[in-house]
């Protein structure tokens, strides 16, 4: 289902591309490996910088990632005896009022070994029960933490948008409850990766109405309502594979479908505040016809061609940085601090790639058009339309600027 937007591998690669670009901006020369770029603590530091906190350097990133882990069927489980101190930030974020959760580590001996074995069993169980879903969700899980039950304050499972890739659970009693947590929290992790790479949420959703659920009357902003709907939808699918399993008394599987339906209905009623990919996924998972956004154009080909060709030159806005993902999309950052971050589709990526000489290069629309006509194998009208749509969006985002005679230079807008 998710693969219709992007397979997990594509999504992870695009996420790395974004964080690598952030690393080049805030810790130039740090040369962050894929493993480091996946590390939740590194992503926390880079996300913090992108939110406007400037106190970041390469050493902070390397230090953040220094935490020992043990393997549980391919999942990295934190084993570091100093983990409670090293993970103080996420523990504080997820802590229930009055609780100070502590991490179960190798220093806890047999207790840790038993929990590690249960996590490994749970990963195998998840893979056996729902192989496609496990591939889809576990790709977004990078660090797993088990909390000491006497300190967890009632946490069953948790994750946080500030440290994406991290899942925390209470000390488990059965593999099945861990498997359910992998589905629940793994869905949140996937949503976090969608939110930084795809067209999901923008300022509209932050100003949107809040959702109040019927079962506990808790109020959720739209971002959290969407995350909850996404997780309940995955849980309702997983429930169908678990009919022979003994569920925990705390299991959400029996009630997941009903809750997904309730939240989903509210989201449909408020879909105008969602961006295109979020809207599409909402309809696709609910089994209703997705509404497709059309490329914005109300003008005929001649008018577009006239506008396009009347712009004298185009050039990159000074200081724009970009990086290309394996998917062909690219991410760009403006020179402002913090930077504005944009994802570019393949057409916009193609356009911006024409500025091979960087911000000093001026490209004439006519030569760009001629090259696109050669490479895109489309009619001239279609090529012009695609170029104009891409350029309008690049100019509106202040990544590319038209340059030349003032009377002409605004036409592309």
């Amino acid at each position, binding site marked *: 289902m998710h693969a219709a937007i992007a397979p997990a591998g594509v999504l992870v690669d695009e996420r790395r591309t974004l964080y690598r670009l952030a690393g080049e901006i805030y810790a130039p020369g740090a040369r962050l490996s894929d493993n480091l770029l996946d590390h939740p603590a590194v992503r926390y530091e880079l996300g913090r910088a992108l939110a406007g906190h400037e106190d970041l350097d390469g050493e902070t990133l390397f230090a953040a990632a220094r935490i020992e882990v043990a393997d549980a069927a391919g999942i990295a489980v934190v084993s570091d005896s100093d983990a409670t101190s090293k993970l103080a930030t996420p523990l504080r974020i997820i802590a229930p009022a009055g609780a100070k959760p502590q991490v179960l580590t190798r220093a806890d001996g047999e207790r840790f070994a038993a929990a590690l074995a249960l996590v490994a069993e749970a990963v195998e169980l998840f893979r056996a029960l729902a192989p496609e879903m496990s591939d889809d969700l576990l790709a977004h899980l990078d660090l797993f933490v088990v909390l000491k039950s006497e300190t967890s*304050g009632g946490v069953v499972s948790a994750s946080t948008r500030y440290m994406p890739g991290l899942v925390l659970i209470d000390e488990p009693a059965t593999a099945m409850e861990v498997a359910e947590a992998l589905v629940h929290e793994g869905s949140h992790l996937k949503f976090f990766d969608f939110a930084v790479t795809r067209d999901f949420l*923008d300022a509209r959703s932050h100003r949107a109405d809040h959702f109040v659920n019927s079962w506990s009357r808790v109020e*959720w902003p739209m971002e959290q309502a969407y995350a909850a709907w996404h997780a309940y939808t995955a849980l309702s699918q997983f429930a169908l594979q678990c009919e022979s399993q003994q569920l925990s008394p705390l299991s959400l599987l029996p009630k997941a479908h*009903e809750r997904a339906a309730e939240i989903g209905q509210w989201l449909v009623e408020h879909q105008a505040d969602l*961006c295109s990919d979020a809207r599409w996924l909402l309809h696709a998972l609910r089994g209703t016809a997705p509404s497709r956004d059309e490329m914005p154009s109300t003008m005929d080909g001649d008018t577009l061609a006239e506008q396009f060709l009347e712009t004298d030159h185009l050039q990159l806005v000074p200081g724009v940085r970009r990086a290309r993902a394996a998917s062909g999309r690219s991410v760009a950052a403006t020179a402002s601090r*913090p930077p504005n971050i*944009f994802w570019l589709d393949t057409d916009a990526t193609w356009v911006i790639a024409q500025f091979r000489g960087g911000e000093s290069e001026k490209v004439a629309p006519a030569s760009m058009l001629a090259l696109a006509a050669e490479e895109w194998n489309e009619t001239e009208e279609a090529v012009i339309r695609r170029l104009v749509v891409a350029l309008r969006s690049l100019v509106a985002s202040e990544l590319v600027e038209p340059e030349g005679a003032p009377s002409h230079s605004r036409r592309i807008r």
Partner: protein
Amino acid sequence: MTPNQPVRPQMPPAMPSGRTPHLPQGGGPVVGQPVNQVDFFRHMPNGGATVYLRPAEVAQND
């Protein structure tokens, strides 16, 4: 920077299970705007965590 008070989804007891949603035939990638801004980092909501608590703690905290 990060807030201390998570917004917690609260989840009490049981109900019937559901059907698998089906992806519509012909579904595929969305055709949207060529350039999309990432707003996720700029927007730092209070809480920013999804925490599933035991029902006893739900009652206690709410």
